[in-house]
């Protein structure tokens, strides 16, 4: 168990290094000098040259890469071109907002998703099933920005129930979280339903019934834990889905989060900032999936053994 965890950890670090390399290379195949692009046409050649040297951009690519990696290990991700502040500081303050948003969204997705999934499976092919599955497939099919604008329009503009944008009050997080979590909730609900229905066909369910367990007892004590296993593996996709969605949600609701920072970085052609935010997001995804693996092995003794 411990051994396989270490193995997975090493693998995660390798993937992370691959990710850094990929981002690094991709951002540097853009034609033109980034300093020049950033400063516009008015910059004089001397200033550009000085800044280029200052930022080490005149060095060969591999030297730049190792420099970046080694300073990243010390928590230094460079200085943002456009905002003039250290990237780590910018990300640090934005990350809190994104984290709150993502946690709320995940909470909504898991509670609503699993709940709807179970109810759907129990009432298979009857009204609640059709209703919940309708909602979940709607969530999967609705682009995040549409969900966001729709909620903004109805609850913010028409009904004035909740703030349209900003996060000055905690209520500001409600609409963005729902908009962001709806998609994941739909996926979780569908997976829960499928897995539960499949689990209910297993032989050990018959055994439990033969013992005299009530239907609800069978569901809670035998079916659910087994059905949650495939749902758990979805966590990986969920993490990356939530982060993708955060980019959009934060833009629509004007929340100062990592996603919005990333959009700013792109429009400002701010490479250190883009690099830093992308690295953070992928690291979250990678370690999120690692966490899912660990949880999985806690829940499934068969995996625990094999290592």
């Amino acid at each position, binding site marked *: 168990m411990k051994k396989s965890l270490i193995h997975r950890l090493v693998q995660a670090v390798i*993937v992370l290094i691959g990710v850094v390399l990929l981002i690094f290379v991709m951002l540097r195949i853009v034609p033109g000098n980034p300093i020049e692009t950033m400063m516009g046409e008015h910059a004089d050649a001397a200033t550009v040259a000085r800044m280029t040297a200052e930022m080490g951009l005149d060095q060969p690519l591999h030297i730049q890469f190792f420099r970046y990696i080694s300073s990243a290990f010390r928590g230094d991700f460079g200085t943002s071109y456009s905002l003039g502040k250290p990237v780590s500081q910018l990300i640090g303050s934005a990350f809190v907002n994104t984290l709150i948003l993502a946690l709320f969204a995940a909470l909504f997705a898991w509670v609503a998703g699993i709940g709807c999934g179970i109810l759907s499976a129990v009432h298979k092919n009857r009204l609640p099933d059709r209703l919940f599955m309708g909602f979940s497939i709607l969530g999967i099919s609705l682009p995040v920005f549409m969900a966001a604008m729709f909620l903004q329009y109805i609850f913010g503009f028409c009904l004035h129930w909740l703030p349209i944008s900003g996060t000055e009050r905690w209520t500001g997080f409600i609409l963005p979280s729902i908009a962001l979590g709806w998609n994941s909730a739909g996926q979780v609900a569908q997976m829960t339903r499928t897995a539960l229905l499949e689990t209910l066909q297993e032989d050990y369910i018959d055994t439990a019934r033969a013992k005299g367990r009530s239907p609800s007892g069978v569901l809670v004590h035998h079916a659910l834990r087994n059905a949650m296993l495939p749902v758990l593996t979805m966590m990986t996709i969920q993490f990356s889905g939530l982060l993708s969605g955060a980019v959009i949600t934060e833009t629509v609701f004007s929340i100062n989060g990592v996603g919005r920072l990333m959009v700013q970085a792109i429009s400002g052609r701010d490479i250190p900032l883009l690099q830093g935010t992308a690295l953070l997001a992928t690291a979250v995804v990678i370690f999120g999936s690692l966490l899912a693996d660990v949880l999985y092995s806690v829940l499934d003794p068969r995996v625990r053994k094999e290592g």
Partner: protein
Amino acid sequence: MLKAKRKQVEQAADLRLQSQIGEQERFRDQLRRMARENKTAVVSFFVIVILMLAAILAPLLTPYEENEMDLLHRLQPPSAEHLLGTDEGGRDVLTRLLFGARVSLLIGVAPALLSLILGALLGAAAGYRGGMTDTVIMRIADVTLAFPSMLLAMVIMYSLGGGIFNVFLTLTLVNWANVARIVRSQTLKLRSDEFVEAARVTGVPDRTILRRHILPNCLPTLLVLFTLNIPAAILTESSLSFLGLGIQPPNASWGLMINTGRQYLYNAPWLCFAPGAAIMLIVLSFNFLGNGLLDVLDPRMKKQ
């Protein structure tokens, strides 16, 4: 190994029961069954066909030109003349929606197909060859999958710049890894299946086994993946365009229309909600169709 054997016997027993109760079906029968049992999937199929026809026949369906400005009639609400109103330049929204469908559908289908081919080839190679091939391909796939899809798309679009062709390329690069992963696991499973072993013991060469036994048995999965990759591509493109990173004006894609309409959300909501509803309709249809196919073709894949 023992467990695998037991499982086989058990599955055989299951199948035997099936042959008593309802026979195991072939591809054609499965499609027929879906058509019979899953009305939503059938309706979705027709919605898709109609939308495609509408996109192709767009110039015949509307009296207006795609970019015909009419500054006197800006931001008009829906009326008999302009069924879905006009935008900030006085252009007919319905017309732009129909022309936008061309871009959005093309952007759904083309990258889905490209990533399917790329992913299937790499996945099958990784699964069947194993060893170094497998390690290299799957590590690259892992790195790709570690990115949130929007983020990867944004970074690629940033380095490539906007434009339809670059959007194609980006969406292909974002989606291939998932296809590769699923095809690989399917290939691995098929490779250890007894009928493949039977072909090996008969002396059938590896390449023939791959072509004759493994790929045809992957086809249902590929079809499902294709159907489900289309809405994924449409969603990613619309999100990119919404952020202004995708299709560039004057080309109209639905995402871009929403992007420009967003500033008028409170006084001209139809500018956002009309293309939004269109995206939802097409994505919903593909999802329903894909799920229908998944149900009849490959119920076990749902877990992945």
